[in-house]
């Protein structure tokens, strides 16, 4: 992109970088104002606002005629959504062209201008930073993640399952779709996974205070020191001073010797913040470093640019500048750092550990939201606050029926039963029941619940003969049995589908056994399902895009979908064959049993589960989805055909 909406001298306009990169032009939106053109070759310096600042602007320093004071032009990027991105691309483009212009020589001003001391700018404009830092900030943007093939490959390698899906789908994709198209499509649906993986990857474990970990151990009377390579590296990292001492001493000294002397030295004690006493061993070689400047041991440190008022202890102390009063007693007077170096050492060590972490209160006080809001958020009594607002989007369904057209029959069966009853009858039935109950009561036997609901075991025979009790009472044996079966069935189904724990703990073989399939078939089935979903997903994106150019793609996809159906069928066939084989085996066993014992066993072929029925049950939703997709496609296709022919007729 070479164009961005910016404001210059408080006027809105557009900043354009010419195609050939020779000039940068700013054109005002208001026609009255004058525009500005800068030759890239005349630009001596380019500055931008720091990454974190809320204001996005660049400053272009131009030296039109050598020897004259340079001109500054500041452009603020005004796009509410993508100011930072626009700025980044403009800056990158400009930098490229400036470099080109410089390399080609010509009328380039002295390159020394870049190094020239910066003017004390009123705005805190930091030198344009390298593109690397910026890349990090946007690392989690969708577009970046999509382009990061390295990351995608790593993720695929890290998750074999995903890899399998990817490969399978890749194999079965229609030829019209290029690999790039396919992978874009594939990852577009999984950007969140990519992001999560990128975040996961960028997290590192923090370091620890290495000096506190290393302790000489006493083994058989001799002091031994165990220290690993990583620990040495960490020591060097945390204490640059030790690296220096090591560099200057080790060739002369044996390495092991150095470390054992170091851990017994005064220098070591000093680094740990311990007080050095007379009794500590003297080591002329290492002791010469004792007087080192504390800053020499500073490494990357936790820093804070701005102290928020809520922890501004200095501000608290200075709150009353005319404070006099009596001095505190001596127990309350802090000693100097020389007397108790440990305090500062503890703090700096902790700060070193957190060097790479962004401070909690790093919020820029000059940001538009400022500290006020943040400060207040911390003060809020959270439990007095109402729970977080429900941020779900409520779906307003105007014609609910449409959504249940698929299977009227399975709709709540009891509701249809109730719908058939007439209120009058029901009421009289209930009254009857109540009368029965009260009758029972009046006879002095108390309330017999079983009678009340009509489940008198003794009165009902084992087989619940028909006609004896025509009215299906609520509590009779049959209805109770039916209810139990229904409930158990529902529970089993739920259990199979929803129990995460089951899914995660049991192997596929076990799951397969539950539905009566072999694990091989179940795996194939799962794979087929996954790829089909993938293609469905792709189909809908293409189909709903309404892009005429993609019509061919859609057509191919429809074919693929049809093939998917076939694939499902193939799996079903395999399953059926398996079942038949099992059935055969079972029958054979029964035969054998019969021959051996002469007794015929009852055999119910329904007890062998699995087969095409199981497969089709499981795949019913996806089959329906494919069906609906195909149907819609067909419909649209027909409509278009009709339109086309109409058009042709008109022509």
């Amino acid at each position: 992109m070479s164009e961005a909406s910016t404001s210059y001298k408080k006027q809105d306009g557009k900043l354009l970088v010419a195609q050939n990169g020779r000039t940068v032009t700013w054109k005002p939106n208001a026609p009255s104002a004058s525009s500005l053109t800068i030759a890239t070759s005349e630009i001596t310096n380019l500055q931008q606002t720091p990454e974190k600042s809320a204001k996005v602007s660049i400053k272009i320093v131009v030296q039109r005629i050598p020897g004259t004071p340079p001109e500054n032009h500041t452009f603020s990027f005004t796009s509410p959504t993508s100011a930072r991105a626009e700025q980044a691309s403009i800056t990158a483009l400009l930098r490229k062209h400036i470099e080109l212009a410089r390399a080609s020589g010509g009328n380039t001003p002295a390159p020394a201008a870049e190094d020239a001391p910066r003017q004390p700018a009123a705005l805190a404009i930091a030198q344009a930073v390298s593109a690397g830092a910026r890349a990090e900030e946007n690392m989690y943007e969708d577009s970046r993640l999509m382009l990061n093939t390295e990351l995608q490959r790593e993720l695929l390698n890290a998750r074999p399952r995903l890899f399998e899906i990817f490969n399978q789908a890749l194999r079965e994709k229609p030829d019209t779709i290029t690999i790039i198209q396919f992978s874009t499509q594939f990852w577009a649906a999984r950007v969140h996974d990519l992001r999560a993986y990128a975040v996961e990857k960028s997290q590192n474990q923090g370091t620890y205070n290495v000096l506190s970990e290393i302790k000489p151990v006493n083994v058989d009377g001799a002091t031994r020191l165990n220290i690993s390579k990583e620990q040495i590296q960490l020591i060097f990292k945390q204490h640059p001073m030790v690296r220096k001492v090591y560099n200057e001493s080790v060739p002369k000294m044996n390495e092991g010797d150095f470390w054992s002397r170091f851990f017994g030295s005064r220098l070591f004690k000093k680094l740990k913040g311990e007080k050095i006493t007379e009794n500590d061993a003297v080591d002329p070689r290492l002791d010469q470093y004792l007087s080192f400047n504390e800053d020499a041991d500073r490494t990357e440190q936790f820093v804070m640019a701005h102290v928020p008022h809520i922890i501004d202890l200095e501000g608290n102390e200075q709150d009353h500048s005319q404070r006099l009063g009596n001095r505190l007693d001596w127990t309350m007077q802090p000693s100097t750092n020389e007397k108790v170096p440990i305090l500062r050492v503890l703090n700096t060590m902790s700060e070193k550990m957190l060097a790479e972490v962004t401070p909690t209160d790093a919020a820029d006080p000059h940001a538009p939201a400022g500290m006020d809001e943040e400060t207040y958020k911390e003060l809020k009594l959270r439990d007095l606050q109402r729970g977080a607002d429900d941020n779900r989007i409520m779906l307003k369904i105007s014609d609910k029926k449409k959504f249940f057209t698929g299977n009227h029959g399975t709709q709540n069966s009891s509701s249809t039963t109730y719908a058939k009853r007439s209120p009058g009858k029901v009421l009289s039935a209930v009254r009857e029941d109540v009368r029965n109950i009260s009758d029972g009561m009046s006879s002095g036997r108390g309330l017999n619940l079983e009678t009340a609901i009509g489940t008198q075991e003794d009165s009902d025979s084992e087989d619940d003969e028909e006609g004896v009790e025509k009215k299906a009472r609520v509590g009779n044996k049959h209805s109770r049995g039916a209810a139990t079966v229904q409930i158990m069935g529902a529970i089993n189904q739920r259990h199979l589908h929803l129990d995460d724990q089951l899914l995660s703990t049991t192997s596929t073989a076990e799951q397969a056994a539950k539905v009566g399939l072999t694990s091989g078939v179940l795996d194939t089935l799962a794979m087929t399902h996954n790829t089909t979903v993938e293609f469905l997903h792709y189909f809908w994106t293409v189909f709903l895009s309404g892009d005429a150019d993609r019509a061919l793609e859609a057509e191919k996809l429809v074919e693929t979908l049809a093939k998917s159906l076939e694939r499902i069928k193939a799996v079903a066939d395999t399953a059926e064959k398996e079942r038949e084989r099992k059935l055969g085996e079972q029958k054979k066993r029964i035969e054998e049993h019969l021959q051996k014992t002469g007794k015929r066993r009852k055999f119910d072929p329904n007890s062998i589960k699995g087969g095409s029925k199981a497969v089709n049950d499981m795949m019913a939703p996806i089959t329906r989805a494919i069906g609906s997709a195909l149907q819609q496609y067909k419909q649209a296709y027909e409509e278009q055909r009709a339109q086309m022919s109409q058009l042709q007729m008109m022509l």
Partner: protein
Amino acid sequence: MRFNIEELEVLFPYPSIYPEQYAYMCDLKRTLDAGGHCVLEMPSGTGKTVSLLSLIVAYQQVQPEKRKLIYCSRTMSEIEKALAELKALMKYRTEQLGYEEEFRGLGLTSRKNLCLHPSVKREKSGSVVDARCRSLTAGFVKEKKERGEDVEMCVYHDNLDLLEPHNLIPPGVWTFDGLLKYGESQKQCPYFTARRMMPYCNVIIYSYHYLLDPKIAERVSRELSKDCIVVFDEAHNIDNVCIESLSIDLTEDSLRKATRGVNNLDRKITEMKSTDAEKLQSEYAKLVQGLQEADEARNEDAFMSNPALPDDLLKEAVPGNIRRAEHFVAFLKRFIEYLKTRMKVLHVISETPPSFLNHLRDLTFIERKPLRFCAERLTSLVRTLELTNIEDYQPLQEVATFATLIATYETGFLLILEPFESDTATVPNPILHFTCLDAAIAIKPVFERFSSVIITSGTMSPLDMYPKMLAFSTVIQQSYTMTLARKSFLPMIVPRGTDQSRITSAFQQRNDPSVIRNYGNLLTEFCKLTPDGIVVFFPSYLYMEGIISMWQGMGILDTVWKYKLILVETPDSQETALALETYRTACNNGRGAVLLCVARGKVSEGIDFDHHYGRTVLCIGVPFQYTESRILKARLEFLRETYRIKEQEFLSFDAMRHAAQCLGRVLRGKDDYGIMVMADRRFLSKRQQLPKWIQQALDDKYADLSVDQAVSAAKAFLREMSVPWSRVEQRGVSTWDAEDLAMHKAKQEEEMIRMLEEEAQNGGGMVEVDEYGGDDLDEVMADLDA
């Protein structure tokens, strides 16, 4: 939510409320109605500030006279927080009412904290900032500029003159951050904006000093009207602030510098005599006429104001012998020399001001009266000489302050000369303490001037200590307990180590290795079990430094490093602020950290460790004051003789208020939870002195534990706290929504009616109205009589 307390509609910026907040507001309202003072102890972290502000702002807005609220807090951090709460409250009111009320709320802190001048704000010391600011903004500097002289001025200050004096900043509530930002954008001085807008504010939030310390109260708070509502929040330490504001130390070094200052002054006078003798003459003339420029003291650029309280000032002309500039300088020199000779004594002296003055008169013929005018006279001189680099004269200013104070006050003060810093020191380093023993002196004008003074904090037990010490009477004294739907904090007393030996920070035993090891063990165990942040408080710097060094030597800190980052409060406040930020970051990022600090230090005041910033607070040792301190001894004696407060009673009261304050730091809101460990055998006998709300939560079974028992109790507690908990379970018990509140009110009314009926049966209005009555009851009773 919106609700009524009697006839007053209160807008409370949350949808629900804690029962204690409601009770607190009711009592506040009764106090305001009755027009008296009160002492209220409200559990830490139950939203005291927001209750206070909601009620008082509601009260202000319905009253035609719009009484101003002066809200005093301890530290700038707390002031900033209060401002933020006020701002949110006003935002809520605007939303609810549908219009924006005409309202101004501002905070004030020192120039140092509010300066925008590019070079002045970089000065490290607040008094230097003050001095440099004055040299850029004083009236005479402006005059000089107008005369065409080349003087530096502050553009931020000058820009204020271009604005309407009563509308320097748009209405609304401004936090310090907001004020600074506004000042930066408008290029106007935030400090003077706030100072000059004080008279137009509905709410002023600043630190106690601005009301109590005559050195600044005179200048800042003089024009506040009598009907202001004054609140001292976090007031548990207010007596010490009172004392501090009338006490002063002189050292040999400061006397040396004062001499230098007075010599400089001498030179300046000679210079001026040769160039502009007229000015000195006119000053003299003014002093003769006794035209103590009344407005001069009020002048915001005055060098210093009188360190004595307004009522104790002499309203007469400056005595003749110090009217002439050169005479005054000679007088000062003589006085300083006298002080220097007194400092040479090598034994401790403690004497009363009259005895000191007698000795002074006998030796140097300096009388009491001119001494009393010292501060005022010096101010006038500095002004006449148009001195700009006044920071050089600060030690001289201290001497003048000392002179004025000692000549003004006779009783309740003591002069103590300590030649050696400690008992073991051999090289003398004398300090002359002029110490105020009576906290009531400094606060007296406040009670006399303002009709309603509210003293409140999370830790004020025993409540009657404050009226006693500060010599005032209250309408209401109340301590609220904390209603809890689950036990969200666990106070424990741990008097024994794992090895069953007693642990204590008592002076004689504190260096005992077994005690130190046991404390170390306590620390490591709690670092292991506590998630995120843990705060440890020690009784003094000396003790903390000692024990940390010993722990390091014993390898205890090496173990702690395995579980937490270690951060320590250090003498340098910038360094400590960075340590605090590191601590907070480590708590947020999951690393976890332990913060070691001092119970009376700068971290213990005004820094909160709520939620994960402090899941455990360890109070290692009872934070007793150093009892061998001569100043403390003198104060104890004074308290016993004057207010009949026993030494031991005061000492343990003082220690426990600080301990409770430390413990309370970890709670904010009822969804927060934390462990409070009091590790010292002496806590066993101090249990009754804890605030009611802690006592109530302190089960007997947790009142005497060894370290390992405490560890398992804490683990069990944390496990309990990890059970998911929703606010639904709190509803109606520890939080009320509008319905619950209505129910409570209905119940109360019923209760009241029942009581009235009973009383009516018992013989009409003969029964005395008890404390639950209030105004309504009074009215009803009157009806009954009639």
